[in-house]
C-alpha cells in the first residue's frame, strides 16, 4: 500500500506547480459553431483556444475589441459568459506512425475507441508548403492495381491525381482499390525483407460522408489488412451542426490529411 502512496506522491511531484500567466476571455455571443469572444488580448491568428469541457476553437477573426473563433467539436454545452483560455499554440495535429490503423477527427483525436494516439510529435496545420524546387522529382511509379489506369495514365509517387465522376460511378472504389493494392505491395516487401523498400502509407479523408458509408469502407480496409497502412481522417455529416452548415470541421481535414502526409518519410 505504501508503494502506491509513494507512486502517487512522485506523480504529484512531477507536476508543474508554479503559477503561470494565462490569457483569458469571455464568450460574448455564440451560435452555429462560431463564437465572439471579449478579452483574449495577445491571441494570435490561427491560435488554438480552449473552451470549457476541453473543446478546441480556432481564432480566425481578430478585431479591435473581440476575437471571432470557430469551434471544432461539440459546442452545444457552451454559453455566453463562459471563460475561455488562449493556449499559445497554433493549430496543430499529432503526426507519426502511431496514427496508422486509426480513425481520427479533424484535430487528430481518436474516434475508433482504440485508446489514445501514441504520437509524440505534432505538426502545425497552417504551414507554407515547400517550393517546387525543394521537392524531390517523381522517379517511382505508384501502382493502383487497376490495369487500365496503370497502363494508360500511370501515376508516380508524389504526384497529385484527381478522380472526377458522377455520383455512384466508383470514385471511392478506385481510391480504396489503390490503398488495398499498396498495402498488398507493402506486405509482400515486408515478407521478402527488402530493406531498401519504402512503404506507401495511405491517408483516407472522409468529408461529409454518412457514418454508415465510412463504416463500410473501414470494414473493407480491415478485411483486406490495408488498415494497418492507412490513417482515416473523418469529419462526417453527423458530427455537429457546423459540419453541415459552414463546415469548419470539413475544411480542416484537408489540411490535416495533407500535413500528416507531409510528415511521413
Amino acid at each position, binding site marked *: 500500500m505504501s508503494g502506491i502512496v509513494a507512486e502517487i506522491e512522485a506523480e*504529484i511531484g512531477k507536476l508543474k506547480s508554479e503559477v503561470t*500567466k*494565462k*490569457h483569458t*476571455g469571455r464568450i460574448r455571443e455564440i451560435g452555429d459553431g462560431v463564437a465572439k469572444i*471579449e*478579452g483574449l488580448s495577445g491571441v494570435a491568428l490561427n491560435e488554438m483556444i480552449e473552451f470549457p469541457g476541453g473543446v478546441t476553437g480556432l481564432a480566425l477573426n481578430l478585431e479591435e*475589441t473581440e476575437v471571432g473563433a470557430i469551434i471544432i467539436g461539440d459546442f452545444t454545452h457552451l454559453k455566453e459568459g463562459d471563460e475561455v483560455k488562449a493556449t499559445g499554440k497554433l493549430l496543430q495535429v499529432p503526426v507519426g506512425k502511431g496514427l496508422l490503423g486509426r480513425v481520427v477527427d479533424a484535430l487528430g483525436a481518436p474516434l475508433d475507441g482504440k485508446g489514445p494516439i501514441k504520437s509524440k510529435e505534432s505538426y502545425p496545420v497552417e504551414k507554407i508548403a515547400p517550393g517546387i524546387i525543394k521537392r524531390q522529382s517523381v522517379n517511382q511509379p505508384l501502382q493502383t492495381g487497376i490495369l487500365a489506369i496503370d497502363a494508360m495514365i500511370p501515376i508516380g509517387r508524389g504526384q497529385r491525381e484527381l478522380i472526377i465522376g458522377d455520383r455512384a460511378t466508383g470514385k471511392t472504389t478506385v481510391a480504396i482499390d489503390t490503398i488495398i493494392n499498396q498495402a498488398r505491395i507493402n506486405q509482400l516487401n515486408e515478407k521478402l525483407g527488402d530493406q531498401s523498400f519504402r512503404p506507401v502509407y495511405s491517408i483516407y479523408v472522409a468529408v461529409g460522408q454518412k457514418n454508415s458509408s465510412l463504416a463500410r469502407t473501414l470494414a473493407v480496409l480491415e478485411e483486406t489488412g490495408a488498415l494497418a497502412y492507412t490513417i482515416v481522417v473523418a469529419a462526417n455529416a453527423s458530427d455537429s451542426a457546423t459540419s453541415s452548415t459552414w463546415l469548419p470541421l470539413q475544411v480542416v481535414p484537408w489540411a490535416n490529411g495533407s500535413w500528416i502526409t507531409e510528415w511521413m518519410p
Partner: protein
Amino acid sequence: MKINRAARAEAKSLFRICRTEKGLDEERLRKVIGIITKQRPRGYLQVLGRLGQLVRLEVARATHELVSATKLDDGGKAIFGVLEKHFGKPLEQRAEVRPEVLGGLRIRVGSDVWDATIRGRLEALARSA
C-alpha cells in the same frame, strides 16, 4: 443590436475624447453621454451602445480581481497595493470569496489570469493524467 460602421467610428472618437493620460475620465464621459441623449443625433442609440461596450471593456481591462477561498485578513489590501505598483491605478478593485477554489489565490488583471488556487492545480493534474 447591430451596430453599423459609422456608429462604431463615432463611438470610438467619442471614447478617445473621454480618455486622458491617467485613464478614463468619468466626468467627461458623463458629459458626452448627456449631450448625446439630449441632442439625439442620427443613430444615437447605436453610438451609445458601442460607447457602452468600449467603456465596459476599458473597465474590465483596468480591473484588479482577487479570488480566494476564505476572506483575507486585510481584505486583500496588501496584494492590491502590489498590483497597483506593478500595473498602475485600477478603475475597480474586486476581492471575491469563492469556497470552491479550496485554497490559494487567483489574480486577474484585464484578460491576464494568474491561477495559484488548489482547484486550478487539481484541474492541471487531471488534465496531465
